Structure formats: C-alpha cells, structure tokens
C-alpha cells in the first residue's frame, strides 16, 4: 500500500520491532515489563523520540509567523506532517486535516462548531459502547434542546445494527460512533453505518482513537464526514491528535476557539476567518507533537498496516484460546479475530478488577482496571468494572503466557 512498506506476506520481525521501543526492555518489580495497556497509550519508537529531540535542538521556532530561516523550516516540517496524515488516512487534501490535542478535543470541536447549527428537537445518535469523550460533548447540546439516542450492544459485544434503522429519524443530524471499542475491541461496520446515516440525511463522525493503530484507514472509502484520533495511541506523542473532516463540511462550520492563526482580518467587533485548515487551529499548535506524529506514521508505513493487523489477529487468536485456562474468567467482546482487535476486557470471579491489576503488576504486567471511561457500557455488561489487557503488534505470545501465569496467581490469592 505505502512506499517502503514490508511486503504483504513477509514475516514481521517482532524482536527487531521491539528493539525500536526503549521502554519495552525496562524491568518492573525486577521482572521484564509486559506492557498490555496500549489502548490507554502505546509506547513510542526511538525514531519518534529522536525526531522530537531533533526538532527542539535544530529547528525549534514558531510556525506560520516568521520569514526567518528557522520559522520557514519549522513550518515546512509541520505542514509535511499534515500531508503525511492526509495520505495515511487517504484524505482528499491536507486542508481536511486539523491538528488538535487528541480525540477528545476533536469531538468537542465538532460538537461545538457543528452543534451550533443544530436546533431544538434535533437528535444525535450515539451507541452504548462509546468512550465518555464521545458522549459528554454531545450532552452539552441538550441545553439547547438537542436529544440523544443510543444504539444498543448485543451480548456478543457487537452493535445492534438494526437499532440504526429504528432510531434514525429526520431529526437525526449527527451519528457518532467508535470505529473500535476501547473496552470490547469490537470493530464496528462504520461503512455500513455511514450509508445508513447519509441515506437519512445525517452526518457521521467516526471516533478512530482505537482503530487507527490497528487497521488501515481510508476516510473516502468509509465516507465518514468526520474522523477523530489521537497521536499517542498510534506510537506518536501525547498532546497531538487529528480531526479529519470533509472540506465541504468544514466550510459550513464556524471556528471552535478564537485567537491567532484562525483569522484573516480582525476588526474591533468581528473578524474574517482564515482558510482551511487554519480556521480551526487557534494559537500556537503542538509543533513538535505534529512532527512526532508524522514520524510515527512513517514508522507504521514501514512496518505496514497489513502486517500490524495480521500480527494483531494472531495475538487475538492465541489470547482467546489460552485465557480460558485461567478458569472462572469472563472475557467480553467478539470471539472471532476478524471482528475485533487485540484488546481484551475480562473479569475473574471473586477478584475485583483493581485487585487483579495490582497483583499482575507484581509480575511486571501492566494492565488497566476500572470503567475505562465507558460507564454506560459497564452498566450494559452489568459490572462495575473490568480488567483490560490491550495488546499491540509488538507484544508476543510469550508475554500472553506470562500474563496468564500472573492471573493464576491472582486467583490463588483470593481463593
């Protein structure tokens, strides 16, 4: 697909990939780190770390502000990163790429700027598997009389697709849906949902925070109006993320924040907005972050998203096969590696999720426990919390084995 990618069926050398991530060779509690918290944030390869370091040492300067050499070079690199992002998700133009802090800010931007156009009685359609960041910004619109609807979740962790037909009305103006669930790992059929939304005259926002690290993204094929993601969940830095939106849609929207960069002309009482994408980028952006994200994308391209997905499926199959060995374990989400990524939420009978995470930590295993910012989904599952092991392509079957041993210890402690 991309230049320089590893040929489709070439075996990915995982140990070589791992050696690019300095933190993966750290010891935790005297044990080798088993980092299974990638859905919270992935680690960064040395290429990304060095790019940020190099920027601050060699080209640091503000962008779009000066004509001096450094500012020109910083601007070039910043805009090259934007082009890189555009290519990575197959956007039509870099003008459709808005740099933000992360997925949360991207969704807030849309809820505010597109939300301004909504009227009393309009509706926004979400789902029960959304992260709070794809719920709360929409709740702000309830103040002006906008109503929220929720598509349900089946027992197997998939979306109740039929709900879209029942819940879409003429009043539905935005459908917003996670591409991949951060709790269940489910991959949702966003192309199909986009079709349904458009047939009914609604726009669709796809929350790509958990999909972009695992599967290759083509926003034109998906035909989404908005696609939001975070750099830090795809080997890039924290504090940088992207809102993709169709140019035609962005043209209809007012800015989210006021400030420098977003204006062409400022009078005392009003201003004229700048061209895209700058209209939505008020203030000095996270320049080093954007450059780091560009390098993370280069890294993913070299490895190849097809390879990443293939390794991920292998890890999913192995985990789903071996985790039941622990006994008294409930694993949530689809059972088929086609329909999910390698993110596993589970509960051990008799052991609270928090206690599981604390005990496996003794074995160097980093997992998360809690509600994962998805309380409506926890309620749907009927549990206060889950433990979550979220893997990435640089994880190994041996690490899954270690993890399973540590889970057995947790069971012993509480038996």
């Amino acid at each position, binding site marked *: 697909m991309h230049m320089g990618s590893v040929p489709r069926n070439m075996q990915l050398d995982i140990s070589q990939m791992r050696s690019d991530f300095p933190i993966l060779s750290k010891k935790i509690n005297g044990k080798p780190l088993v980092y299974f918290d990638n859905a919270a944030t992935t680690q960064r390869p040395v290429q990304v770390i060095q790019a940020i370091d190099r920027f601050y040492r060699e080209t640091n300067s503000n962008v779009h502000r000066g004509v001096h050499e450094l500012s020109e070079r910083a601007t070039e690199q910043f805009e090259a990163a934007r082009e890189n992002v555009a290519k990575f998700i197959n956007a039509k133009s870099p003008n459709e790429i808005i740099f933000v802090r992360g997925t949360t800010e991207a969704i807030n931007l849309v809820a505010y700027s597109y939300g301004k156009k909504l009227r009393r009685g309009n509706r926004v359609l979400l789902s029960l598997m959304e992260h709070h960041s794809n719920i709360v910004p929409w709740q702000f619109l309830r103040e002006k009389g906008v109503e929220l609807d929720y598509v349900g979740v089946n027992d197997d962790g998939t979306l109740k697709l039929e709900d879209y037909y029942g819940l879409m009305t003429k009043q539905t103006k935005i459908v917003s849906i996670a591409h991949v669930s951060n709790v269940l790992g489910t991959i949702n059929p966003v192309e199909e949902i986009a079709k349904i939304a458009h047939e009914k005259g609604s726009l669709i926002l796809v929350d790509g925070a958990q999909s972009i690290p695992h599967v290759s993204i083509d926003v034109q094929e998906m035909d989404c109006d908005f696609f939001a993601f975070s750099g830090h969940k795809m080997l890039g830095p924290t504090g940088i993320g992207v809102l993709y939106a169709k140019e035609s849609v962005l043209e209809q929207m007012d800015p989210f924040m006021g400030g420098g960069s977003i204006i062409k002309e400022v009078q005392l009482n009003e201003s004229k907005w700048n061209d895209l994408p700058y209209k939505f980028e008020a203030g000095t952006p996270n320049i080093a972050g954007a450059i780091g994200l560009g390098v993370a994308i280069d890294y993913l391209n070299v490895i190849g998203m097809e390879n990443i997905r293939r390794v991920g499926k292998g890890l999913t199959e192995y985990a789903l096969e071996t985790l039941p060995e622990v006994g008294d374990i409930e694993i949530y989400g689809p059972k088929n590696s086609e329909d999910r990524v390698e993110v596993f939420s589970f509960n051990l009978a008799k052991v*609270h999720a928090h206690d599981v995470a604390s005990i496996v930590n003794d074995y160097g295993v980093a997992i998360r426990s*809690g*509600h994962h910012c998805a309380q409506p989904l926890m309620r749907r599952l009927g549990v206060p919390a889950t433990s979550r092991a979220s893997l990435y392509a640089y994880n190994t079957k041996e690490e899954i084995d270690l993890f399973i041993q540590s889970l057995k210890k947790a069971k012993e402690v509480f038996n």
Partner: protein
Amino acid sequence: MGMDMYAENILDHYKNPRNFGKLNNPTGTYKDSNPLCGDEVEIQLQLSGDKIDDVAFTGRGCAISQASTSMLTEQIKGKEIGHVKKFTQQDIVSMLGISIGPTRMKCALLGLRTLQKGLWGMSAPSDLTNLQ
C-alpha cells in the same frame, strides 16, 4: 506494591467484613464512591450524644476499599465522633499495615472520606495534600 498489599489481615477483612450490614435506627447514613473505579460504600452510624454506639457498612469494590472500611468501623465503634474527624491518611496506612501507591490510596481512603465528607463536609482527609 502488589502482592504484599494482599496481606492476610486485608484478605481476612475483605472475605469476612466486620460490621457488615444495615442498622435498624441509624442516626446518619453516609454514602460515597470512588469515581476512578466505581468502588462504593455506605456507612451507618448510631450515635448517643457524641458517642458512636453502633456502626455498620455495606459496599462493593476492591479488597483494599472494602477491607479498609471494615477495619475503620472496628476502630471507631464505641469512640467519640471527634475521633473520626481527627483520623488522617497516615492513620489509615498504619491501620492497614501495608504500603500503598497514590492510585490505590483513593481506594484505601474511601471509607474515611465517606464519613468525613458526610459528617463535616471535609473535602479530603486532612493530610491528603501530602500525597506526592
């Protein structure tokens, strides 16, 4: 942190919580939860004057939050109510007898926080600010 957190006394209180249940005629009922993990406790007090005649709690959550609340009820039963107000984070740590990191500290403090907030509107145990 980790395994040594699950000392015998902690597991004992978790599996056999003391003063677990509801009182018939409570003077006050105080409820709170830890938003981080959804741990919940509800503590009831029966006071005569300033003395805690009886105490009971219900709840659900991790071993640390539930064991800590169980131990706390044992510590305050029969004491003056002012005793609860003076309780500090350090007292909870000594009571549990284990070392605890900043995240799990919130679990450990849930019971105390519930009472101090419910009774006096205290925002956090008095030396929570020492938490690095």
